[in-house]
């Protein structure tokens, strides 16, 4: 199975929008999940919902998680602590920028790359120039 991707944002709209953009790049070959907002629908992140998204994205060969701000990272880490079994050993929490990282990561599994390569490529998106001065 290709590496799965989970997009975590405080805003469900932001997570879903980035997922849609990433899916466009992946051509339907990658399992990309968007998760954001609290249980009652306000802005925030919810470890339980992130854990559900990780399970949904898990094809057995790794999951790259991209997050917006610090507490999304804390919620993702908490989700991994709550996860039973081997799931957490297949997950990489990426320090990549959310939009660029998601676009780059979405292309990688579709060309057969594994979790380490997908993770490295997402991080590499930090050095991409949007504006050439």
């Amino acid at each position, binding site marked *: 199975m290709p590496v799965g991707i989970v997009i975590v944002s405080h805003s469900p709209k932001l997570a879903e929008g980035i997922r849609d953009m990433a899916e466009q790049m992946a051509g339907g070959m990658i399992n990309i999940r968007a998760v954001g*907002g*609290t*249980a*009652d629908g*306000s*802005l*925030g*992140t*919810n*470890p*339980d919902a992130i854990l559900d998204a990780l399970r949904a994205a898990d094809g057995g060969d790794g999951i790259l998680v991209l997050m917006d*701000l*610090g*507490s999304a990272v*804390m*919620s993702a*880490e*908490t989700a991994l*602590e*709550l996860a039973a079994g081997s799931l957490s050993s297949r997950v990489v929490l990426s320090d990549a920028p959310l939009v660029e990282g998601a676009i780059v990561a979405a292309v990688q599994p579709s060309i057969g790359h594994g979790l380490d390569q997908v993770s490295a490529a997402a991080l590499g998106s930090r050095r991409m120039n949007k504006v050439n001065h």
Partner: protein
Amino acid sequence: MGNTDGLGLAIAERVQAVMAEHAAELTQLDSAIGDGDHGTNMNRGFTAVLAKVQEQPDQSLAAVIKTAAMTLISTVGGAAGPLYGTAFLRASTALAASPEVGTAEVATAVKAALEGVQQRGKATTGEKTMVDAIAPAVDALNAAAEAGASVADALDQAAEAARQGMEATIPMLATKGRASYLGERSIGHQDPGATSSYYILRTIADLVRERANA
């Protein structure tokens, strides 16, 4: 501290009331340097905790704290969810390991909570976070345990140390959390997380004092 029967439920009731009472103040502190939801989040979280604890009111203190942790993780929404959730999980594990709850056990549990917060938030003292309230409380509890103080006296000293730690966050420059995006603008405001940590410690201290005097 002698008998801890019903203490978990009593703490859940009292902390919920205190968070409801101070929700507007915590949110206002958070609006100055954060995303303006700390009071709302803490009130929502501890309201859910109380409802959960009331379903099984006879649980041990450690079990109640674990229920609180899991409920906060799934309901708070902001950074406080994973942070307080991890803190309470660690405290619960520490308390579950000892049948008697004395000053040394309380000190160990709060120290475990602090370590959980520091691990989850990668924060240390002086960064304008809840660590600045909890770390002095741990020092006070350790000193009280060494001096042979009662749990009620030890918690009282810990809450006072937390209050001083909370006030000491006012001149600090935030380097963690949403406030760190503000840079210099974070100076001059009291940290909302340190404030909620103080309220929790003060509430528990007052409750344990009342039970000791009863």
